[in-house]
């Protein structure tokens, strides 16, 4: 049984990601059952070996999943995926850390044991390929997409959902839906991530380069799976238009929006100037 972990941002600015995912998976015969009681995963996996405290939040979510009888936990946000997956891998390989965490959370009725599998939406879609083909009513004909993975679906290697240096799944999916995926050399580049809070210039520079290249290569839109990448490549790109003459933003979509369009459930807004 698969439980669904939306994460904070899919409940707010990225609600379209959550909504289209539910619609699309329902169409494919999978009802997304949201965990009844989840908390923030922490967004970033702690890399410090002596910092067990920051593993509590992701592991607590895994307890919630286990409690409700789920064997798999589905994520869509690349950051939630990475954080939950890495915390899970950590407690699976380090029984000492696991028992420390369980001891600390002694008020929980269920002890965590590493038994829940953290998966990303792409992995579920891979299994539903035949159904996807059946459901395409409104193919993405004539549209060119630049596939953009960013960092956390692909790195580090131990949690990569595809080849970290040469991922293919997004292109494959776009083509399954009747669209064209361009060969995009910046598909795995970083958007500047959380520096959008304290070092915006870095994000502006990354956004400038990524969006410009996508445009130069003839893409009509970017397609991705991370709400933070989305914010940087879309909202920040729009701000950047005022600052750098000649720069134009490009529409940015979650992969579930492409599926929803292809299934005839909603329409992609491709108008470039003045779109929201």
């Amino acid at each position, binding site marked *: 049984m698969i439980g669904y972990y939306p*994460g*904070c*941002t899919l409940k*707010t*600015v*990225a609600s379209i990601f959550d909504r289209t995912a539910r619609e699309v998976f329902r169409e494919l015969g999978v009802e997304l059952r949201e965990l009844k009681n989840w908390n*923030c995963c*922490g*967004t*970033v996996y*702690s*890399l*410090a*070996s*002596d*910092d067990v405290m*920051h593993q509590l939040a992701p592991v607590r979510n895994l307890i919630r999943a286990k409690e409700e009888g789920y064997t798999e936990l589905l994520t869509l*946000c690349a*950051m939630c995926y990475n954080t939950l997956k890495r915390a899970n891998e950590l407690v699976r390989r380090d029984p000492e850390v696991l028992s420390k965490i369980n001891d600390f959370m002694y008020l929980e009725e269920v002890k965590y044991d590493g038994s829940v599998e953290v998966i990303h939406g792409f992995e579920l879609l891979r299994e539903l390929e035949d159904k996807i083909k059946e459901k395409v009513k409104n193919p993405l004909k004539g549209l060119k997409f630049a596939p953009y993975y960013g*960092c*956390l679906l*692909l*790195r*580090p*290697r131990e949690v990569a959902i595809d080849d*970290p*240096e040469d991922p293919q799944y997004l292109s494959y999916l776009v083509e399954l839906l009747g669209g064209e995926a361009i060969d995009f050399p910046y598909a*795995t*580049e*970083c958007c*500047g*991530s*959380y*520096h*959008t*809070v*304290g*070092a915006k*210039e*870095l994000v502006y*520079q*990354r956004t400038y380069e990524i969006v410009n290249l996508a445009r130069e290569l003839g893409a009509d839109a970017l397609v991705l799976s991370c*709400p*933070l990448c989305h*914010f940087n490549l879309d*909202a920040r790109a729009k701000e950047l238009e005022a600052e750098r003459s000649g720069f134009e933003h490009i529409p940015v979509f979650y992969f579930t929006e492409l599926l929803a369009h292809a299934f005839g459930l909603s329409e992609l807004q491709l108008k470039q100037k003045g779109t929201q």
Partner: protein
Amino acid sequence: MYVKIDHTKVKGDLVRKIEEISGVDVNRCYQCGKCSAGCPGAPFMDLLPSQVMHLLMTGRVDRVLESNTHWICASCFTCTVRCPKDIDLAGVMEAIRQIELRERKDFVRVDKLPERLNAPTIAMVSAFRKLTS
């Protein structure tokens, strides 16, 4: 004349702490520069990631702490997946940040941020987790 270079003496306590937190032996780096070549933060950094490694293995951690490199690092893991010596450089950057944060030296000052900060939850939680103590 016989000269014995002992890296354990060169490194000093702070470098050893960084190695402990990150689980990386900094001496394994052979200075190929691949990490710096692909680093998205490099144009904004005082020191390149490979230079940080060089300074750590020669015990000049003060130069590292003076730089902004570990703060600019966005934990993108590009260096980590590309290092031919399998060094988790993103983990080294985190360890250096931890050294600073544990002394309450923050990179992002919450009280200095604009009152209406235009950024989604995911950005704020991650920035505060990474860059504030």
